[in-house]
């Protein structure tokens, strides 16, 4: 399947709203599924070419930066890194398989979560180790579990692909 970048951004806007409203209300230990990150993974895995993959990932990160207190551009950089990696390894991964999607979600959430945790610890101050580790694991798990559901739903929707 191939998607259109502008429509993916529209879906990203809805996902962002969901992330800071409904999903935050049902967060588990402060952790919640990273929908925007999963969309960036989707954008990289199912891109027409490298260019579209990295651009869509970067734009989704920038969208997430709009509702975050961190420095503007931080999520854009992280999502770009994840997207650039995935868009290159997608040739050797069976991206339609649920297990692949689970692993991709877990890898992306673990990598970005670790980077963000370290950055927050360095720039903002101390978070207790228990909270750090617990939330990192919970966020990774929730995002990994949500990945096959989101990818499956995205593959089924005609909105992204129709002309």
């Amino acid at each position, binding site marked *: 399947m191939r998607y259109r970048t502008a429509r993916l951004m529209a879906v990203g806007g809805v996902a*962002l*709203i969901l*992330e*800071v*409203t409904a999903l*935050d*209300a049902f*967060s588990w230990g*402060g*952790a*919640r599924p*990273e929908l*925007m990150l999963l969309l960036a993974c989707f954008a990289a895995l199912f891109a027409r*070419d*490298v*260019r579209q993959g*990295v*651009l869509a990932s*970067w734009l989704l*990160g*920038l969208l*997430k*930066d*709009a*509702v*975050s*207190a*961190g*420095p*503007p*551009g*931080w*999520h*854009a*950089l992280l999502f*770009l*890194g994840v997207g*650039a990696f995935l868009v290159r390894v997608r040739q050797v991964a069976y991206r339609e398989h649920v297990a692949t999607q689970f692993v991709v979600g877990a890898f992306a959430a673990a990598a970005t*979560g670790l980077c*963000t*945790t370290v950055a*927050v*610890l360095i*720039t*903002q*101050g*101390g*978070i*207790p180790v228990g*909270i750090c580790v617990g*939330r990192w694991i919970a*966020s990774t798990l929730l995002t990994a579990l949500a990945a096959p559901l989101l990818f499956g739903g995205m593959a089924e929707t005609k909105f992204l692909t129709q002309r």
Partner: protein
Amino acid sequence: MPARRRRNVLPFVLAATAVVLMVGPQAIPRTVRTTLALVFVPLRSTAWGLCGLVQRAAPDASADVLEKERDYFRVQAQEMHVKLSEARARLDELSGLRGVLPDPRLRLLPAAVIVGADGSVWRRTIAVARGSAHGVQPGQLVLWERHVLGRVVETGPWSCRVQLLSDPAFKVGAVIVPRQHEGAERREVGVFEGASGQGGVLKWLSGDAAVEEGALVATTVDPERGIPAGLILGRVAGPSRHRGPYPRIEVQSIVNPRAVENVWILLGAQS
């Protein structure tokens, strides 16, 4: 060939742009994104409208049960209100909270919450619908009644971002208000820091500081940052489990920021 080169260069261009955004002048991007939070205003009002419609459309078969429940809770609420009034009066006497805002320069500005969460799970911020056009400036405290909710960190013309007290970057001088007046001969000032959870940690008290579970933690006066004394930060959640000369006391926030719809911004805190 040129297309291939362009494809290879693009990730680096995007990465460089992101880095410039991060390390470059922050005023414009921060103002833009704080203003973008206003997009949530119609969404929020639509959500509230839908909630109201659903409540009105609910079947009234259980109306009797609901009425009984309402009466019961009303009585409970009245009893709690009386107890709360007594507790407040006692607290005022003990901790001198009465006259918290003696400085006539300090004014309170009501504001509606428009985004109740941060995009990152590691940060704790909300966006409210008041900005620099209303006199809001970074550094001003945000309150809910006498409870500190956080501090303004970014302002747009009509909206601002508030760093909640559970955010790891939130720091303020604080004291433990003893529950038993007897024996409280001196108060030790510590530093309250957000812990990205449900509250924060009170640090830098001496090892022999009296710590009572459930005791209130309040702000100390900080004239430089315009913070008045006696605003409530939270409640002591338990004794320190930190090994070291200085205890680290866990402080639980009393107010749930997710449930708050309106806040007060303490204007004039920044002189």
